[in-house]
């Protein structure tokens, strides 16, 4: 496994330029389209005050210097302070909201993977027949679904008409479990708090279904195409020819191989998960990063918005890194 370790280290090194570029893009876009000073002061502030603020924020330096200042700040784990209200450190704003997003994303991800892979397998093993067409269509339709709309429809049905599930928030009043991970479901399990656990799950159902269904179509399609591709490979033919039972062939040989490209796509689709999470959060008043981003954009809280985007960027990079590493772990061919 030493070679795997070397690979991981190298892969991390490769991620570094990517980080720089992403941060650069974020930084320059924010600089080009937004003016932090007027966001702080309002447009009518006297010139000397503008200058003073500019100096305070280091905005009077050439833009490249600003960028390096900013990078330096980031290296120290400092995302700056919010421009509004309490001017809290952006990082604490993010940590307040991130667990909610994480919890939602994980659940939705699980839903989408389970539904997607299941339907994908059925479609692929029924290639050309009814279930194949049906689930292909499912894949296309779900991809075209508009998250807020699915959300609202689910809210209408389960929240308003049937009244069986909550349509907003993360957990019932005063039911928060003791904070360990920040994920309510996990924390309530760890503290054996059944009441909280049930409440957390109930609140999670509709948002994760919304996001999960939306994403599942992609996995249906991915699983289907890659499984069909793998099923046509010689080594699968050869596995049949050796008389291996269907279960072994499909799950052990085919699915595992099909999983490699699916995994890569999962890494790429991760961005979509985040996008979906933002919309889902706003539809379900889920107190996560998406809600935070939206709120702060309307208030022009420049640094927080930038911080959130940087944070997203880092997550995206981390995930693609993770995916590659898992990939290398699964696929012996990758290890150099």
């Amino acid at each position, binding site marked *: 496994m030493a070679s795997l370790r070397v690979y991981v280290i190298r892969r991390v090194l490769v991620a570094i330029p990517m980080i720089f570029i992403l941060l650069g893009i974020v930084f320059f876009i924010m600089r080009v389209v937004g003016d932090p000073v007027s966001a702080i002061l309002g447009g009518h502030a006297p010139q000397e005050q503008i200058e003073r603020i500019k100096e305070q924020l280091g905005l009077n330096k050439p833009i490249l210097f600003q960028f390096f200042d900013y990078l330096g700040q980031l290296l120290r784990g400092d995302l700056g302070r919010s421009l509004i209200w309490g001017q809290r450190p952006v990082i604490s704003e993010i940590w307040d909201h991130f667990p909610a997003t994480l919890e939602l994303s994980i659940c939705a991800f699980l839903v989408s993977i389970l539904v997607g892979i299941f339907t994908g397998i059925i479609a692929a093993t029924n*290639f*050309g027949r009814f279930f194949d067409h049906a689930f292909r269509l499912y894949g296309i339709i779900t991809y075209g679904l508009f998250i807020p709309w699915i959300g609202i429809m689910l809210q209408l049905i389960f929240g308003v008409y049937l009244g069986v599930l909550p349509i907003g928030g993360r957990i019932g009043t005063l039911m928060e479990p003791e904070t360990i991970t920040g994920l309510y479901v996990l924390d309530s399990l760890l503290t054996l708090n059944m009441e909280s656990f049930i409440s957390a799950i109930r609140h999670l159902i509709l948002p994760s279904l919304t996001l999960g269904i939306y994403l599942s179509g992609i996995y249906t399609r991915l699983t289907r195409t890659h499984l069909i591709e793998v099923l*046509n*490979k*010689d*080594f699968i*033919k*050869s*596995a*049949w*020819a*050796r*008389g*291996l*039972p269907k279960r*072994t062939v499909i799950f052990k*040989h085919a699915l*595992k*191989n099909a999983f490699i490209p699916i995994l890569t796509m999962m890494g790429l689709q991760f961005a979509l998960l985040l996008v979906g999470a933002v919309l889902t959060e706003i539809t379900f008043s889920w107190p996560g990063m998406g809600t935070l981003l939206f709120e702060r954009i309307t208030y022009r809280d420049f640094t927080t918005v930038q911080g959130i985007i940087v944070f997203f960027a880092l997550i995206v990079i981390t995930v693609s890194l993770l995916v590659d590493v898992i990939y290398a772990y*699964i*696929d*012996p*061919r990758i290890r150099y």
Partner: protein
Amino acid sequence: MKNLLTIQDLRVYYYLREGAVRAVDGVSFFMKRGETVGLVGESGSGKSTLGLSILKLVSSPGKIVSGKILFNGNDIAGWNEKKMRLLRGSRISMVFQDPMTSLNPLMRIEEHLVETIRTHQKIPKAEAKKKASLLLNEVGIPPERGGDYPHQFSGGMRQRIGIALAIALNPDLLIADEFTSSLDVIVQFQILNLMKKLKASHQMGLIFISHDISLVSEIADRIALMYAGQIVEFAPADIFFSEPLHPYSEGLLNSVPNIELSDQKLNYIPGMPPDLVRPPDGCRFYPRCPYGEDICRRKEPPLVQIEKEHMVKCFRYDGKKSRT
């Protein structure tokens, strides 16, 4: 001696939107225990389909439409999937063309072997492992490399592993589909020799599928020449090469450069093989045949027996070797 395998009037079609591709269309031949049949034909003539249909592994949209497949006297054409599964890999096994892709890239080769053995024989893992090492040794792979992954082997070695997998359970019949065509000549030569050796020691029947007629001549006892989904000539190898009867056999043999001959005059067969969805009404070779007559266009020639074990599908022969 009883036949190991007898195929009678087998038809395998692929059902596409454009119509049924008659990939195997009325094929009959037989082979005895321990014999090698060389199945030759150009690309698309239905060799692989025929090979796969013996294992009943033709993939959708392909279907065995009719015909008998008698293996050790039992018609397996009617067997269900469960029964076939027990047969596959243990009594009849198959080696595929591309050594690159016929092994699961995520599995160690030892696992491949152990898995196959334990599917058919209920023996403990350790014992299966021991068997696996023996097999690897037999095909010339150092057994200590059993823990490696397929991509760590060269093409020739992978093909050896493929063979080990195929002979793991001492099958009666081995179907080898173009299994040396992606190898270099020298390696091909080595593998071919290995195959001959194993065939003798394991008393296996072998169906050797290839488009390379020269290569087939090196190993086959009988030759079955396919053209457009049909066997046009079936003969003992030495007879086939010395006295080919079918015009196609003749043409084919003449179009292959032979390194032994100096100042060879090469020939070619004009035209192209027919579309298998709408094959010509009469003889399928008629459009390209230098001897074609009117009857060939109208009627499909029967597969006639010339001598005891020599059959040809051509109107020019009428149960005798002489032309009518």
